[in-house]
């Protein structure tokens, strides 16, 4: 492809992107390189490339999402695919159609790629085993959000050249965060040192078995890190009362202007969005000079184009076989 940067010869053969846990560092790098090639499509006056012409992409979203869904839609459009939007609130007690039936029905209409967001961990993997179309995970429960993980490492790599040796803190509700998990897999595979920061009540089970460090003190960590990714407090996922009040949470884990004084001057401040301003992050920090939050959003488009492009390519190869 003309718009693709020259990369090492690499044979991408995954028809589905379900998570970053199973990807090798080479595969992740290959996606990032492919995304670099796609980035300039968005800068042209005619913002379109042809590789998915005649293909149908379904956005199968069972959870609220604005930016991820729009980003996938735009990415598919830029690659000239037709896009079907399917949005439905899922619920474990819902008497409606099962996920499998929904997907099989869509498949009967001749779709090529399913982009799925679902509240159940493993939903994308489950779908990939049961339908013929390529499956891209746009977030499954608190398991993974691979394109977010990819766009995060893409953003860091673009600014810093490489993740090798970087120290990265991921702060907040780790237990319920698919972003934290996808980031962890991608960042550590690319050579960064990741620290999960948050109260013990928001850490997942046996976090010590994960390839990360754990800290309960943002003040101790902030001085040392090159990148800080502030997770959104997801009120809809929090069970019980993992911290006594928002006030107290912000006191210990909020990224304030004051706390930023201790950080390295060139620290990158990230957030997967949408931001609860004043809660996990003060507005001045969110909009400040270290913030790369909008850069993340921009890069998300290129990364999703690359992912759709690659899974489609692999799917066509599989079909030929």
């Amino acid at each position, binding site marked *: 492809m003309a718009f693709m940067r020259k990369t090492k010869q690499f044979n991408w053969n995954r028809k589905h992107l379900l998570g970053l*846990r199973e990807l090798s560092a080479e595969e992740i790098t290959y996606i990032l390189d492919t995304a670099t090639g796609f980035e300039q499509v968005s800068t042209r006056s005619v913002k379109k490339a042809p590789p998915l012409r005649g293909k149908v992409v379904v956005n199968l979203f069972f959870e609220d999402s604005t930016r991820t869904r729009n980003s996938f839609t735009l990415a598919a459009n830029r690659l000239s695919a037709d896009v079907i939007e399917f949005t439905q609130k899922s619920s*474990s007690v819902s008497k409606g159609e*099962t*996920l*499998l039936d929904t997907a099989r029905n869509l498949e009967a209409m001749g779709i090529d790629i399913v982009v799925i967001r*679902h*509240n*159940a*961990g*493993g*939903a994308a*993997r*489950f779908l990939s085993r*049961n339908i013929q179309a390529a499956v891209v995970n746009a977030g*499954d*429960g*608190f*398991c*993974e959000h691979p394109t977010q993980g990819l766009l995060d490492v893409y953003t860091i790599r673009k600014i810093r050249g490489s993740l090798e040796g970087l120290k990265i803190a991921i702060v907040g509700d780790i237990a319920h965060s*698919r972003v934290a*998990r996808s980031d962890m897999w991608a960042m550590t595979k690319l050579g960064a040192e990741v620290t999960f920061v948050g109260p013990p009540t928001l850490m*997942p*089970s*046996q*976090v010590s*078995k*994960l390839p990360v460090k754990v800290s309960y003190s943002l003040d101790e960590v902030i001085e040392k890190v090159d990148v800080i990714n502030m997770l959104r407090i997801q009120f809809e996922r929090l*069970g*019980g009362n993992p911290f006594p009040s928002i006030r107290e949470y912000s006191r210990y884990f909020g990224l304030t202007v004051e706390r930023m004084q201790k950080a390295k001057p060139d620290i990158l401040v990230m957030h997967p969005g949408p931001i609860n301003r004043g809660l996990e992050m003060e507005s001045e920090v969110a909009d400040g000079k270290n913030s790369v939050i909008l850069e993340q959003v921009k890069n998300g488009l290129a990364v999703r184009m690359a992912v759709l492009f690659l899974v489609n390519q692999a799917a066509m190869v599989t079909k030929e076989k």
Partner: protein
Amino acid sequence: MWKNKTMDTELLIKNGRVIDPANNIDKVCDVLIADGKIAEVGKIEKQVPNVIDATGKLVTPGLIDIHVHFREPGDEEEETIASGSAAAVAAGYTSVVCMPNTKPVIETETDVEYVHRKARQARKTHVYTMGAITKGLEGVELAEMGFMSEAGAVGFTDDGHGVQDPSVMLRALKYASMFNVFIAQHCQDDRIAGNGVMNAGYYSTILGLPGMDPLAEEAMLWRDIQLVKKLPEQKVRYHAQHISTAGSVELIRVAKKDSLPVTCEVTPHHLLLTEENCSEYDTNYKMNPPLRTKKDAEALKQAIADGLVDALVTDHAPHLQSEKELEFLTAPFGIVGLECALALFVKALIEPGILDWPRLISLLTDKPAKVIGIDKGTLGIGKQADIAIINPETKYKIDINTFVSKSKNCPYHGWKVKGKVEKTIVQGEIRYAS
């Protein structure tokens, strides 16, 4: 009760290895059945018209499973008392105990009688039932345990739920002791377990699924043992259902050392499978209590070796394929277990040398009979002739398509196993022959 055909006639089982743990018998000899009862065990020269040659086979008391779900009334599309009973005899089980979490819940004497009537109509295996401890399994008000035990309920449990409120549990233990029936608990503190769908640990973390901490089971078991301790003057009998963690094993160990009236049971899946099996989100590995770690499975095996376990059970839990074809988060808990149970226990306990045959058979016959308080599980003279004839050498592949059970939700499909039931005799009548 009407008489069946073979009741009047005699049946002689020749030359098998007769294992009757309750009577300390393990020798090659013959068993004579007359009028549906055990007439004689030993070298028998008598000529009778009906003879089974059991050379090379094991002749044991019929197996007893004190933890099954036959789904009737309410979910007959998954299993009925008839289909479950047929699956039971095909697996050597001559007595089973149904759990009361049906729709409606078994919580009155009429409900108990309904189960018994359906079982009589099915005429396969003996079917017992437990009643609910609390109305609607809600953990609030005691159900009519007196009437239910008069109707034949062998014990009480809110299985599927633990009784959360300690004061309700204390009352249940006291009240049940009046009828000399046992109280069984599905140990799970809901506040700790939360909305978990698998064991809380490394795998729940990387799979992004809500976990149930082992503490949910252990905290309730610990609490219950304290309650039992407080009631020394009552004839309390407490039974911990399907224990699954190393911590629970230690609690049972101490309780037994203190000679408390505490018994427990273990399933084959908690011996053979672990949380790692959930890695591919296959809902056939979703059960409650959840599959734990290798360390827990080893602790359970050690408990069995140490004689701390009173019964091996299947927790046979049928579900429709369409229900199991859901996301792991939403699919129901449980697997069917009757029809491969014996072979799985052989794999888990005999093949690694943890138990010999007599000890295994004991945990499947006289010991569970003692837990629920029925006069079964032995080949004693005059006892009902419930017998399993087992070929311990038969090698086969588990195939869910051969299951008699209406449901096929089973993770063992394709496993190569050894040990198969060839004939099942209930009250002197051959109810299953392979």
